[in-house]
């Protein structure tokens, strides 16, 4: 993530799963105002339920600097009930318990800290249900 202004801007989708559903049916969690397939600007704001399934996943053994002490950990592509696709860490599980198609729920967790004196970044991760 990033410094305070960007972090604050991303709060609606990272904290509350506020998403956009376009007239074509395309649902996006990261804020988009244009449908990438149709170019439509017609959308409604929705709040995702937080429930979904794992489409694919991998185990990270060599991580970016902020996460080197958390390895190994699981990162998954998840499709929510509403059809939004997102990438999230899958936590509170053993890597061998993660399967494609497994049901997950998004929970509110700490994502990273910006050093010892910077802000703490929060957002969604997934747990197996």
């Amino acid at each position, binding site marked *: 993530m990033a410094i305070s202004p960007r972090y604050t801007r991303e709060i609606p989708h990272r904290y*509350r799963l506020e998403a956009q559903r376009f007239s074509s049916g395309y649902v996006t969690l990261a804020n988009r105002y244009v449908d990438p397939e149709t170019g439509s600007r017609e959308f409604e704001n929705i709040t995702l339920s937080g429930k979904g399934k794992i489409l694919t996943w991998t185990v990270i053994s060599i991580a970016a600097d902020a996460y080197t*002490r958390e390895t190994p950990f699981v990162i998954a592509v998840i499709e929510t009930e509403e059809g939004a696709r997102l990438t999230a860490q899958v936590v*509170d599980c053993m890597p061998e318990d993660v399967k494609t198609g497994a049901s997950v729920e998004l929970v509110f967790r700490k994502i990273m800290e910006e050093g010892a004196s910077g802000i703490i970044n929060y957002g969604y991760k997934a747990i197996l249900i």
Partner: protein
Amino acid sequence: MVGIVGFGSYVPSYRIKAQTIAAQWGDDAAAIERGLMLKEKTVPGRDEDTITIAIAAAKNALKRARIDPKLIGAVYIGSESHPYAVKPSGTVLIDALGIGPDVHVADFEFACKAGSEAMFVAYSHVKSGNMDYAMGIGADTSQGAPGDALEYSASAGGAAFIFGAKDVLADVKFTHSYTSDTADFWRREYQHYPRHGGRFTGEPAYFKHVLGCGERLLEKSGMKAQDFAFAVFHMPNGKFPLKAGNTLGFTNEQMEQGWVVNLMGNTYSGSSPTGLAAILDVAKPGDKIFMVSFGSGAGSDGFIFEATDKITETQDLASKTRDLLTGKKFYLDYGHYVAYRRKILFNE
């Protein structure tokens, strides 16, 4: 009628056994388990802190309250482990749960009773007619220094309570607070771990305040211990709450449901609130509940609740405390425990 309209708790999935800590320091595990009356304690995940625990508990409280979060006029989080020294935990919570921005938010601190303090103030707001709903939360990721007796008990978890005047599921009948300057446990600024007065934390601190508050609450209400279905007290270990309860005339059977310390440890600000949540999970309409917290420094908050006809329909709407305590668990060895609790110093 003003009381609890929604309640919820949360404990992390990670645990360390008392015998694992005893093995590290060469202590007698059987004597420790017998003395403290606890076998294991919760440990926060690497990505969990007081804010994430408070939010998980508050989500469960909202599921039971079934109200629009925007109607909540105040949110208070009591903790001695707020992640920021300066920046309120409650600001993250209200934005995560869609409460506010028209909301009064404050973080409370009073050692282990900051949670009941938050409940006390939230309840008072609604009782005064100042607002329709207010939320009080107790949550902690408490710290015990390596090798210290507190390391066996200091754990993580929390509970949230929404107070209101409509569709009340546990009516607040009486309250009382009892406070004095008693230096039994403290942590100075910039210190990683608290210090405590050893045996001074017992009779002159915990028992003086818990019994003082409890006796006055019984006097105020004109009730006797046998009038209650349940009782819960702050749980720094397994023995203290049972001894305090017995002294006030409560039986172990009345305290059993809320006595979660043997599986959870001492969640500090979340301790007696989590025990109360475990009681509300099973209480029947008409059951009376006696609660006294304790925070070092020192003070106690007391509440008498009476469950209403509404309680039964809310109990299955969110996770129950004892299910969380006995559900998914990952046991840590001491090395992983100190890494999870960030007791290892690294170069930045």
